[in-house]
């Protein structure tokens, strides 16, 4: 048990942070979002620097990949980082052509990165397996959305096509998808909270800093507990290779925390928080997207309970 970064891990995190300082950040996220673009340049830079296959390295593994995912989420990178660095390596054992979108057969056809994806990983619950679908032009269309990521609508028939992966792949896909969601949520929440505390420290009302009011402090402190809890649960689940129960635990906690973070950060930030001039929305709207994906908090909690104690679906 060691919660401190090793020298190698620190080097990875510092390198990815340095790359992100150049290629990402809320300002860039706002620009890209206005045009509905995917950040192909960022993905290429991450790929070139070797961050997309860090889970598959000899010396590195899923925890190192999760640290990269968390960093990209903190910097609001508009790339499918969780799917590329955690889900594909965890499910298929290799990287897949990006961008990668994740979908559940039979669920909503609107998925994150759907319109830009070259690869669609589908969780087919009926068949009990996962599928890899190569997407070509016309397979998906952009969907106008406020929820922080470029969204696309994938043609329905596609979710039953493509290369079927072996038995067990459905459970693996769900577990890694959950770990990826929790990890992305951890980074996104951290930034939402930082944006909020920074603003409230300098914003003065009633002759004092808003952040000095105890009623405000307690709510922010509770948010901090949830952000920390999400982070350790996600990183531990990644380190353990996404066991079903640990993965469901991390995402069940993360999605409940995300709902609370959205509510508190917006409520405490006031009207400025809803504007595109302020950075909160970059992170907060994404939290809502992460929270609703893959069935949402109710499904995650039930999956956790079944994994731990049994009980039919």
């Amino acid at each position: 048990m060691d919660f401190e970064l090793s020298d190698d891990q620190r080097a990875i995190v510092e390198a990815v942070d340095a790359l992100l300082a150049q290629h990402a950040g809320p300002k860039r996220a706002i620009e890209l979002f206005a045009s509905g673009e995917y950040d192909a340049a960022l993905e290429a830079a991450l790929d070139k620097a070797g961050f997309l296959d860090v889970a598959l390295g000899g010396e590195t593994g899923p925890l190192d990949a999760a640290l990269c995912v968390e960093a990209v989420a903190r910097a609001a990178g508009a790339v499918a980082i969780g799917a590329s660095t955690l889900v594909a390596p965890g499910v298929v054992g290799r990287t897949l052509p990006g961008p990668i979108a994740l979908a559940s057969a039979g669920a909503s056809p609107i998925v994150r990165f759907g319109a830009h994806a070259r690869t669609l990983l589908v969780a087919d619950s009926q068949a009990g397996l996962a599928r890899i679908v190569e997407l070509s032009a016309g397979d998906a269309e952009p969907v106008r959305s406020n929820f922080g990521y470029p969204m696309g609508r994938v043609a329905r028939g596609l979710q039953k096509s493509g290369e079927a992966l072996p038995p067990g792949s459905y459970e693996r896909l769900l577990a890694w998808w959950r770990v990826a969601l929790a990890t992305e949520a951890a980074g996104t929440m951290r930034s939402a909270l930082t944006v909020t505390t920074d603003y409230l420290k300098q914003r003065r009302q009633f002759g004092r800093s808003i952040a000095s009011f105890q009623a405000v402090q307690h709510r922010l402190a509770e948010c901090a507990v949830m952000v920390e809890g999400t982070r350790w649960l996600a990183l531990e689940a990644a380190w353990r290779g996404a066991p079903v129960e640990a993965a469901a635990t991390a995402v069940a906690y993360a999605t409940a925390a995300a709902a609370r973070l959205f509510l508190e950060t917006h409520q405490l930030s006031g009207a400025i928080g809803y504007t595109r001039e302020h950075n909160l929305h970059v992170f907060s709207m994404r939290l809502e997207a992460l929270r609703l994906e893959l069935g949402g908090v109710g499904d995650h909690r039930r999956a956790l309970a079944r994994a731990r104690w049994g009980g039919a679906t």
Partner: protein
Amino acid sequence: MEFGWTADEQGFRRELLEFLREALPQDWEEIAKDGPGSDVQAGFSRAFCGLLASRGWLTQHWPREYGGRDASPWRHAILGEELWARGEPRGPQYMNVNWIGPTIMAFGSEEQKREHLPRISRGEVLWCQGFSEPQAGSDLVALRTLATRDGDVYVVNGSKIWTSYANYAEFCFLVVRTDPESKRHRGISVLLMPMSLPGVEIREIPSVVGERYFHEVFLSDVRVPVSCRLGPENDGWSVVTYALQFERVGAARYARAALTLDGLAARLAKEGRLADPTVQERLGRARAICEAARLLSYRVIDLRAHGQPPSADSNVARVAGTFADRVVGELGLDLFGPDAFEYGGFAESNFRLAMTAGVAVGATEVQLNLIAQRFLGLPQE
């Protein structure tokens, strides 16, 4: 960063669980139902701590010179986790080994270390803590109990309240004001007071939590030798702060909440209720909250293992542990309804212990203040 247990830690947990299967009697839940202050559990705990001590486990994380084994904080954390999960058969001893002992190590004179540490290490002695007063609860520095110097003794007058285990304790970790003119954090000292001194009077305060859970301790002209003072005169607040940092994560509440949750699930399974999606959702929610509390507590142990000074991570862990305790306590009642009314039942016993979580050893609101200021760096005004 990695989240695995070493072979030594895994071996220790296995050995401990084997030991507990032998050492905890079949009717342990019955013994524990009135809480650690009850005569029956207190008696059991005394013998049990002797057993732990004879295996060298009670204070294994202490340095060898004080009766420990220089074991990693992780081994001690495993002990705490497994014992709290089973209703803390150490009883009040967990206080001694977690923070009273370490605070004596940090601030005690050689004589105090020689007097107290070996006895704590052998599990022979019970302590209570004299912190809260009728007019000083969450605002601890409002304390008024006065210790007036008279040659080589302090004459102590005042009263302490909510004191668990005062009825059994041989010593009290007593926080007093030694400078009558002082205000707030200044002028405070800590006394390691023998409870047998004339002028110490104890009254039980009956409660809904358990037997002999709360006491009021009245101190009338109690003559405490100056040699009992721990740390500097009038600067005892630094001693108290040090002790509290250990205290806040001493109790592995998340472990008890998690094991209780497993117990609730086992009972629901017997009744065929585990397939109910609402039941699954509520169990899943509670489990995730317990797991977050576990890792946040581990974070604090990790800082200690790295030799870092106590930080606001302790407050974060404590808030998370308190929440886990409350959520599971409430869930037990919700799931079993009026069946939980009967005293001593599984859900009821747990609820009774869980309901004090947000108040015992410092209100949650105080923890949140500290997180806001020290963890988030928010201004005080």
